[in-house]
């Protein structure tokens, strides 16, 4: 009987919630558990430090008022996060109120998949207006706008990317660690390769992995990874293959995968990689800057624009359709992405390049602002220069799976374990295993 009564009350509450417009619902009548799906603790730490009233319970649990916040984290690699999120979202309609996904995070590599689905709530339905998002960078809104022009996600960061180099190696080999000197040595891919040869002579690797420059090429493509259900290898991806093969053959770099131990060795003085390619989050969040003895810890990095502008990653927040906490979801999204004070805090304390034009332009001109990891350099104006050039027209739902599979397959070619044709064949196999509906790519001309 008790259970029956309880279910009656719950059912009434749910009906009531659907009748009353979401914005008018008092937060206290909403669900008691806020489920957030994510793949690392980047957003978690930002909410912990910047969202008013958030109490930390442990690394994956917190409290906002009397609502329990649960962070459901699945690692990103090999589509694992997407698969976990898909399963949760497909079960959304049947899930109990406390088990429903309330909010989920997505990356640019697969944003469209969720944005073009019914599972991401339009921002307007959460009560967030165009005025609220006016100072956000346009490309961050383009990525999460669906085919009908409806904005469905928000981000607190923008990810224009730069070339991150080691000051000590630059001084030793190029004569100066000044960004302008280094920029002259990496201004286009030919000079980049010439510098790589110089690095090799001095006993250093140009990059930690042949995959480091991959994003620079894959962001400057003129076609998508999948066109009309067929896998497609863009000309610029082929340019990467040619350059990476030459780099590996000449010993300028290795075929260690991104995020592998061998790749991460370069974060420390005994690693010998000269540069990495990436946005603010890479050197602030992923390059062991908190670990004593690392290069970042001692402020040994600096940045310069590099051969070509590109962006990498970025995290968007979506409200899940069917959430039982719409007011709280809306408030977190608004506070964490639209509030200029919070944006300034994140920019100055976490060193993110935040998604607010005014705040970033202010910081670019602030002579007191500098990033300790970069030895006090203020990188903001370089990022601001790149952010306007980001073109998102060639992203597809399949980017994560294709990017990972392509790099893996090509390592076999670079290492001499396969011919180019065999490597393309392996790439096709691996992609079709992930997305059985696709048909294989033609083998492009190797030279």
């Amino acid at each position, binding site marked *: 009987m008790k259970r029956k009564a309880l279910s009656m009350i719950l059912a009434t509450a749910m009906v009531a919630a659907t009748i009353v417009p979401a914005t008018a619902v008092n937060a206290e009548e909403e669900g008691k558990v806020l489920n957030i799906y994510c793949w690392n603790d980047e957003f978690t730490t930002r909410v912990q430090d910047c969202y008013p009233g958030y109490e930390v319970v442990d690394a994956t649990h917190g409290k906002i008022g009397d609502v329990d916040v649960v962070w459901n984290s699945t690692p990103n690699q*090999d*589509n694992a996060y*997407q*698969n976990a999120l*898909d399963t949760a*979202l*497909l079960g959304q309609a049947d899930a109990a109120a406390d088990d429903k996904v309330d909010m989920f995070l997505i990356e640019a590599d697969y944003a469209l*998949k*969720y944005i073009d*689905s019914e*599972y991401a709530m339009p921002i307007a339905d959460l009560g967030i207006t165009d005025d609220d998002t006016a100072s956000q960078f346009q490309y961050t809104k383009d990525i999460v706008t669906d085919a009908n022009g409806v904005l469905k996600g928000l981000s607190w960061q923008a990810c224009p990317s730069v070339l991150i180099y080691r000051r000590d190696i630059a001084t030793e080999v190029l004569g100066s660690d000044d960004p302008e000197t280094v920029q002259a040595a990496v201004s286009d891919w030919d000079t980049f390769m010439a510098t790589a040869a110089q690095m090799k002579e001095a006993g250093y690797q140009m990059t930690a992995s042949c995959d480091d420059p991959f994003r620079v090429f894959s962001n400057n493509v003129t076609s998508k990874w999948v066109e009309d259900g067929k896998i497609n290898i863009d000309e610029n991806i082929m340019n990467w293959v040619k350059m990476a093969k030459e780099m590996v053959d000449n010993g300028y770099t*290795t*075929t*260690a*995968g991104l995020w*592998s*131990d*061998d790749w991460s*060795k370069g974060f420390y003085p005994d*690693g010998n990689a000269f540069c990495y390619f990436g946005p603010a989050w890479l050197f602030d969040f992923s390059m062991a800057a908190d670990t004593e003895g690392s290069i970042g810890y001692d402020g040994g990095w600096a940045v310069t624009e590099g051969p070509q502008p590109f962006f990498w990653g970025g995290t968007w927040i979506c409200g899940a359709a069917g959430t039982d906490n719409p007011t709280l979801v809306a408030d977190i999204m608004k506070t964490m992405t639209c509030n200029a004070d919070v944006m300034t805090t994140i920019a100055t304390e976490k060193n993110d390049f935040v998604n607010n034009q005014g705040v970033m332009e202010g910081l670019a001109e602030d002579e007191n602002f500098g990033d300790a990891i970069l030895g006090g350099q203020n990188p903001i104006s370089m990022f601001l220069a790149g952010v306007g050039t980001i073109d998102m027209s060639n992203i597809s*739902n399949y980017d994560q799976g294709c990017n990972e599979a392509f790099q*893996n397959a090509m*390592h*076999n070619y670079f*290492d001499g*374990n*396969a011919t180019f044709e*065999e490597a393309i064949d*392996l790439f096709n*196999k*691996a992609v079709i*295993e*992930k*997305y*059985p*509906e696709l048909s294989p790519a033609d083998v492009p001309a190797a030279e």
Partner: protein
Amino acid sequence: MKHKKSKVVSYNKWGYIFLLPFTIVYVVFSLIPLVSTVYNSFFENYRSGLTQIGPNFVGLANFQTLLTNGELLPYFGNTMIMWVMGFIPQILLSLLLGAWFSDPQLRLKAAGFFKSVIYLPNLIMASAFAMLFFTLFADTGPINSILINIGIGQFRFMSHAWSVRGLVAFMNLLMWFGNTTILLMAGMLGIDTSLFEAAQVDGATSTDVFFKITLPLLRPILIYVMITSLVGGLQMFDVPQILTNGTGDPMRTSMTLIMYLNKHLFSKNFGLAGALSVLMFFITGILSLIVFKVTNTKVE
């Protein structure tokens, strides 16, 4: 009389009741999944992003795909190569250790201690073990540091087919030789000691005793060890999966059948994964039968 008869019947009832737990567990956790796997193998059933495709009945199309795309044979080959590379040294080592441990004349000290120690690697989770080897043999890992320091130079273990296979085989050997030794030792201790004494009286050397008495009498245990190891070998997954980060690289030369199965399951492709499982079921069955027949026919 009638009273007595009813008592017999009620005893029989207990037989069925005692059988029930096993039957229920078997049906729920083995039989139903088995049947549903076979059933699933006839359907096109996968998820493309957030869209569910199928299930549509496609007959034997999944089997046709698997048998004609030319991937099954190389992966089966990889699995068997890595199993054989691990199993042959393992059985030799286990026979030797088993013979030593079970030989009372050697008067080994602290035999119990060593029996525990050789079993220990099996207690480590296979994935943790593979992670450890992955780090040890990485391009900039400790093994390569040693190689460089003693002047041999760097060897990229993960970029050569035979070094990856060798590492997988070596890990499987390390993890399982203790278990095999214990099994073989139990078999050896079960042999009547009077046979050994009689042989010694007749002037047999210990080599003669081993090959002419111990081995033939050990045959049933050897068959058991071979079949369980073969089935385990065909299901090889965690060690190569973790060691190669799921890629089976270089060029999938260390990809096993179960890793291939996992690729399909990971993208929720239940149709192809089901068909592959059914094929695995037959392959395992046939190989076990062959091992059983071959090892049994020699007995006269």
